[in-house]
């Protein structure tokens, strides 16, 4: 059994098994969920350490199970450096997320079933090499999210949890449907382009018979589609995934969704789910429609400035801690978009690394806010104050998180943002259709974003943790003992470890990115020749 199948099966099996457990056995249910997450974590770490950058194969850890051969449909799993990093991220977030879900007391069984189903879907998306299953797993992640926020969520400022979850689900589904339309177009057009051609598949020669279609990404990636087709369909696929990233101005579901969700779901949501969008752009947008990406991404470099600066400015005017982190996330995803838009190895590698770093950092943030919220029942930072005194450990972790978010060297966020900034400086962003090339401006916005992030993060830290302690909070319980501290410590360690030794994770990511970009750079010229 390959590692990718193991990682997918562990939470899937747990989901199925938990249906059979009596709801009263709460401890058992939790242990099963934690155990399954631990298996995925071990699997993901093994995947990281055994990933071979020198391999000539683009995807490793391959598994293929036939499903509907007449449609060219099979459960095809595998990972390159990009998916490996995302799987690692998901595994850390779900493991710590199940650990901090202790506070859930209602409908424990249902909660963990949905959480495990959700994470099965997320792993499935990152590991699928099949268009159909990519979409299937994606929907599998969205539905549990809807229920988790709707049932276990909380009021987010003036918005009810029902509003939040409806909005989130509608956006995510609408985005996915939009992407699906584009992907189906690629399925037909790409398969037809491959008819009778001999291509490489898993090291062997393969010829797609005329009249048959395939959902296999590895095959579709090798089809060279006409430039007009790619330029027309890339925006559809991109916009679909841009809803999920979320790119400005399609972002408004995300901060509200973050704020309304219970802690573990916020962690998964901000830590992992948003990355599905960026991953989709990279894997499917860049992979299947490279000329379209080359044509259009210049505009994205301009739009992402809005994410970075506007998101940061809105975060500055928020008082609810979860909203601050929510808008901060949309600001940070702007850096990811900027990195992707460079179409260069440095920038795109930085973007993927930042997806990892930001996922861990945000998971830490929501875990900490959730920890405090469970006791104070408020998230408005002005109501907190001087929390460092009753909560020295949690407070210290929060300060570390704030600095990691603000780009402090020593944490992964800095290393990855530096790659994005350096990678985007020399890039020229061509605005398709106008003949204008934008230079420097997006990078300057990104560097100014560091100032903005520092401002709202330090303001939040000052208001919430320093100063006189509000007497109401004198009696708060700090995280005591190993099991309570473990999730926080683990996430901080991951951030610091990959921040100190970034090459450990940059190397496999770069390996995957290079393979994708090899087809993107110069794709327009190639596509122009095809009709």
């Amino acid at each position: 059994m390959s590692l990718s199948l193991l990682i997918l099966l562990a939470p899937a099996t747990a989901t199925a098994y938990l249906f059979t457990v009596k709801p009263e056995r709460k401890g058992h249910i939790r242990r099963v969920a934690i155990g399954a997450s631990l298996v995925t974590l071990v699997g993901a770490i093994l995947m990281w350490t055994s990933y071979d950058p020198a391999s000539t194969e683009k995807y490793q850890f391959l598994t293929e199970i036939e499903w509907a051969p007449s449609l060219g449909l099979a459960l095809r799993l595998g990972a390159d450096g990009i998916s490996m990093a995302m799987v690692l991220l998901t595994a850390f977030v779900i493991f710590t997320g199940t650990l901090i879900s202790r506070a859930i007391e209602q409908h424990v069984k249902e909660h963990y079933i949905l959480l495990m189903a959700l994470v099965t879907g997320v792993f499935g998306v990152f590991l699928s090499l099949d268009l159909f299953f990519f979409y299937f797993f994606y929907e599998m992640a969205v539905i549990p999210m809807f229920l988790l926020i709707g049932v276990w969520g909380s009021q987010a400022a003036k918005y009810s949890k029902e509003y939040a979850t409806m909005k989130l689900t509608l956006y995510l589904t609408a985005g996915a449907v939009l992407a699906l339309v584009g992907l189906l177009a690629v399925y037909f057009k790409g398969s037809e382009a491959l008819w009778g051609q001999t291509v490489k598949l898993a090291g062997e020669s393969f010829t797609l018979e005329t009249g048959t279609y395939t959902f296999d990404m590895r095959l579709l990636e090798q089809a060279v589609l006409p430039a007009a087709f790619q330029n027309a369909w890339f925006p559809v696929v991109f916009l679909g995934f841009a809803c999920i990233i979320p790119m400005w101005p399609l972002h408004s579901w995300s901060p509200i969704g973050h704020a309304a969700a219970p802690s573990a779901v916020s962690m998964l949501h901000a830590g992992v789910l948003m990355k599905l969008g960026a991953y989709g752009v990279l894997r499917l947008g860049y992979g299947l429609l490279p000329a379209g990406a080359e044509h259009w991404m210049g505009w994205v470099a301009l739009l992402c400035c809005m994410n970075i600066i506007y998101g940061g400015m809105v975060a500055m005017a928020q008082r609810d801690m979860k909203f601050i982190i929510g808008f901060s996330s949309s600001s940070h995803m702007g850096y990811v978009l900027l990195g992707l838009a460079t179409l260069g190895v440095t920038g795109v590698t930085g973007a993927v690394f930042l997806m990892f770093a930001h996922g861990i950092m945000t998971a830490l943030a929501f875990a900490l806010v959730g920890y405090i919220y469970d006791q104070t029942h408020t998230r408005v930072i002005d109501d907190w104050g001087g929390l460092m005194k009753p909560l020295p450990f949690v407070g210290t972790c929060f300060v570390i998180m704030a600095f990691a978010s603000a780009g402090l060297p020593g944490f992964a966020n800095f290393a990855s943002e530096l790659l994005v900034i350096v990678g985007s400086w020399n890039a020229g962003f061509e605005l398709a259709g106008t003949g204008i090339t934008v230079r420097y401006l997006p990078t300057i916005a990104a560097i100014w974003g560091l100032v903005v992030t520092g401002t709202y993060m330090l303001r939040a830290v000052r208001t919430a943790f320093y100063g006189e302690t509000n007497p109401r909070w004198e009696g708060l319980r700090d995280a005591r003992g190993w099991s309570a501290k473990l999730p926080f410590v683990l996430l901080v360690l991951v951030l610091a470890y990959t921040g100190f030794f970034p090459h450990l994770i940059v190397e496999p990511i770069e390996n995957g990115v290079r393979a994708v970009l090899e087809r993107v750079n110069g794709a327009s010229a190639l596509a122009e020749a095809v009709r």
Partner: protein
Amino acid sequence: MTDLAWICLFAPLVAAVWIGVSPRFRAGAGAPRLAIATVLFAFVCSLIFLFSVHEPLQSSIAWMDLRTPGGGIVIELGVILDQLSILMLLVVGAVGSAIFIFALGYMKGDPSVGRFYAKFALFVFSMLGIVFANNFLMIFIFWELVGVSSYLLIGYYWQKPSAVEAGKKAFLVNRVADFGFLIGILMIWQLTGSFRFDDIQQAVEAGALTGTSGWTLGLAAFLIFIGAAGKSAQFPFHVWLPDAMEGPTPVSALMHAATMVAAGVYMVARTFFCFGWTGGVSWGDAAEVMALFGGLTAFLAATMALVQNDIKKVLAYSTLSQLGYMVMALGAGAYAVSMFHLTTHAFFKALLFLCAGSVIYGCHHEQDMRRLGGLRKKMPVTFWTFTVGMFALTGIFPFAGFWSKDLILDALHEREFHGLFLLSTLTAGLTALYMARAWFMTFFGKYRGRAEPHESPRVMTGPLVFLAICSASAGFFYGGAQGYLSRWQGMVSELDINVSIAIVSSFVVLIGYAAGWYFFFRKPEKAETVARRFPALHRLLLHKYYIDDFYLWVVRSVQQTIAVFCRLFEERVIVDGMVGGTVRAARRAGDGLRKRFQTGRITQYAYVFLAGITLLVIVMVVL
């Protein structure tokens, strides 16, 4: 040797982390000792390097390697050992050791002294990173780390809102400056293709930049200077430094007087090839602009120091002023002289701050000079060492400051910066005036405080005496220091004391002292009269030229207005307008369909059915 440098660099980090993660160790007496050991180790290393390194040594490791056979970039961490970095290491090691030991006494009784030393060690790590860095990105990394350790230490008394606010201010002002710095680094990288100092210098000297417009080069150099201006608190980024005095006094002494604030000067000296005439290109007027900013800071800060009542604030403004001198020297191209003043200043300013700390400690945490006074007899060691520090600062022959300041005046004279020369001579007089004021108010007259003052313990006076000896004698090494630094390539020309300039400046200083004696010892009421004679000027100085108020207005009014506007835009336009509008449109469409077509009337259904069929037929026939 470079291995030793790597160990020397990372030892304080290991100490900081160990103290940080082990609560039991943090609470014990071992934590301060471990931190002190690491900084003493840095001092010892600097002495070893001083005598054994003659040629520049470097060693680099790839931190993030994205190279391909064709190109790609690599981000490196690397150490460089040359005369410049060894001199700076010596300053950090020597002053750092003295202050770390002093803090043992000063912080005694503080329940979280372990936390203090962990942060202090973190600072030393960050500072050493700047000292050893051999490329721009590494210096930027440690630049940020220094900013964070400064934030943590200024806000050490985190229950105190003003301390937290001051830490935040320091961090954010530096962040704004770093915005320019990073853009400058990227520009230089784009022009020369490397982040490494030696590569950049080679590229510049080999003429790689001929053909690039002076405007571009000037902008790049100016942006690099902006980075330096943030750390070295040059106008208009100077506002954070006086507020930073909220931190414990040893922190002020080490970071906000001797080493961290000097990092900007060190960095410019390190990258001198970006500011001068080398390789046949002119870097615009960046150097002249830099000198101008330095002169402005030196003068403005000295005037502001005149009206401060907090003893630490006087010294803080004095630090600003002296940093202005160093930056002026850099602008005049006298890098070695600037570094020499940095060295002597580190000793005497650390000494003065520690004396202030000793006064504060001895007077039970009183630092308002209006409630001090007459401490000459009660605290003799502090008094005499403070006096030495003051003479050194004001440039009395033969104390250290005399030599280094005179060399700066010399350099300004030689570059024919006549305006700046006059301004800095005048500032020398002002320096004597405000120092005399502090001296008389603190140590002479009657004691005006409440708690009984006492001399500080040995662990505190020991470092004072050590630093006093350094401050008194360092000037005599100016020949040696110049000779040592002349082996480093940044040296432009050797300067010697110009006797006529020395006489003029000494004369101005003596006038300053005389005025100080008259206004603050002989006839203290006269000072009040003068202040009342020029109320507008006095108010201007008290309000620090309204620069802080202006920034506060920008942050509170402009920035917050934009933020609130964005938030309203988000809520009204995006959420209610675009998203809500879509929802309303969908609902209205559904309503319309239901009311118009889902009526339940069979006849209407039949008509619609018929219309549909007709339409289909037409479409099929036509197409």
